[in-house]
């Protein structure tokens, strides 16, 4: 129990050193948080750059090197057209990240607008927004995705619209809940009594509380968006069949499973998992920085 006392070189019971230091500066735990965010972001950036550079290589078919297992030349092996799987995977991941980014930004704008409208424009608008959120969350997410992908006529536009349009409800509900809590607080009531306008309260109080939640909620939106895009493409309702999307790569790989080409299915999946985990790691650590009390280290 007295571990921490010792490590700080203070014999228990002795008077603390002159003016015990207020804050102990960069600490091991917070250092780890920063390192993890750095690592996560660096990994994602490196992946995007690699994906861009390798884009042409992903299309190179080499019929002499068909279905080769992972080797130094082709770390992820090659597919039935002799294309290098690592290149295709990286390009696919870049595409997934792009879809994720688009989905996150659309959701961000929609969520902010609706949450603000719900907060500022009175009870009826608030009830309307809350009902709209319930409506979107009433249908299972993947079913809604399929419906919208079908409505938008399959292909890249379809999946992007589907993913983009179905991720704002959870973020809106989070922001609206927080906005209502802040609006009902005594300190906002005090501000009003001090003659501050609604806009002033929104800018100085609401924003200060919503930004951390919004940032973390937004970053944690990426994994969902990426996985859903991959799922739609896998089911054949997403990107066009020849696009190097992870979903397509994995659904093609299914055909060759019985022939033993396990690497076509396993390795791209691992890469996608790594990307999603990197984004998730960045999100969780951002939360630790922005809202320490909500994190149980």
């Amino acid at each position, binding site marked *: 129990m007295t571990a921490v006392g010792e490590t700080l070189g203070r014999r228990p019971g002795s008077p603390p050193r002159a003016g015990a230091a207020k804050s102990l500066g960069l600490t091991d735990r917070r250092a780890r948080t920063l390192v993890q965010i750095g690592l996560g972001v660096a990994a994602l950036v490196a992946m995007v750059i690699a994906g861009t550079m390798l884009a042409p290589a992903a299309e190179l078919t080499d019929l002499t090197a068909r279905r080769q297992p992972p080797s130094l030349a082709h770390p992820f092996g090659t597919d039935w057209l002799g294309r290098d799987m690592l290149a295709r995977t990286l390009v696919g991941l870049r595409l997934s990240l792009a879809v994720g980014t688009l989905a996150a930004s659309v959701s961000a704008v929609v969520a902010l607008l609706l949450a603000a409208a719900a907060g500022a424009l009175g009870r009826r608008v608030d009830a309307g927004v809350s009902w709209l959120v319930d409506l979107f969350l009433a249908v299972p*997410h993947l079913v809604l995705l399929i*419906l919208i992908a*079908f409505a938008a*006529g399959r292909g890249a536009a379809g999946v992007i619209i589907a993913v983009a349009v179905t991720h704002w409800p959870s973020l809106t509900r989070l922001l609206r809940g927080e906005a209502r809590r802040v609006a009902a607080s005594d300190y906002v009531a005090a501000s009003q009594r001090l003659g501050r306008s609604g806009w002033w309260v929104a800018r100085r109080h609401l924003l200060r509380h919503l930004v951390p939640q919004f940032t973390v909620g937004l970053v944690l939106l990426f994994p969902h968006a990426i996985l859903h895009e991959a799922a739609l493409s896998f089911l054949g309702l997403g990107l066009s069949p020849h696009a190097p999307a992870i979903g397509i790569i994995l659904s093609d790989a299914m055909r060759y*499973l019985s022939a033993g080409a396990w690497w076509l299915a396993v390795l791209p999946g691992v890469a*996608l*998992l790594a990307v999603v*985990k990197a984004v998730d790691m960045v999100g969780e650590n951002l939360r630790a920085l922005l809202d320490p009390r909500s994190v149980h280290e």
Partner: protein
Amino acid sequence: MAVGLLAGRAGRLALLLVGVAVACFALMELSPVDPIDAYVGAEVTRIGPEQRALIAERFGLDEPPLVRFGLWAGRLLRGDLGTSTIYNAPVIGVIAQRFVASLALLATAWALSGLLGFGLGILAAVKRGSPVDRAIRWWAYTLASAPTFWVALLLLTTFSVTLGWTPVCCATPVGIDPADATLWQRLHHLLLPAATLSLVGIAPITLHTREQAIEILRSDFVTFARAQGEHGRGLVRHRLLRNVAVPALLLQFASLSELFGGAVLAEAVFNYPGLGQSTVQAGLRGDVPLLLGIALFTTLFVFAGNTLGDVVHGIVDPRVGSLHRGARP
């Protein structure tokens, strides 16, 4: 008091279904895919204009959108969801039969992931900071980041293709009439899809339960229990379990939406003839009546889950229950 609540809830359900019906119908209208082409499918090149007119007339596809919505809604209210173009059978029949097939998969995964997730979450919280906690958390985070269909592929590759222990696809052995399949054969075919859905379902439940359990372990009443000498297993059994179970139950009933999404993917990989698979087929081949039927049915399914969750919550949590029973201190 309870009747009022039921009426309120039925009202909300009706409003929700109307909303979903209108939204989904509008979505179908937006689709550039010509319903006739989708219906005919590959042989579309070989049918002449008169046949197209015949098909349009039979399925009422040539009316203006608002009229068609009126017709569709009218039939809907009379319980007629129209005919599925890909199965050429009433949509209600298709959904009912397919849902029963999916139910086995959904139920096992729902129960399994609920129990295992709850147990692992509590274990991780009680042993917070230990290697056990770190391992469980790392495992849950990894699974939460893994695409469901890829996990299915992984299981398929290892157990069916490489080891050959489990069938490669379908709900009953290929080549024999599904009616004759024995229970063991059905369970054997259910193994991998259910395993996939459970594995993926465990991750979020574990993380949520762990979060909730840590919150409880920090609470005042656990401090007082520990001051009375409570510790270890006794603390878990007497103070922790119920306080974590109540919110966990609510979450469990609210997870049906995510669960059904998982089923769609698992059924696609294992070619399991459930409602999930037919949702995908309907999306791929533009079976509008079936898609609309599934959208409405799954909304009902999710709403029923949430309602059941609230009812159970009212029973299990005295603070909520007392509101209904009107108990006053």
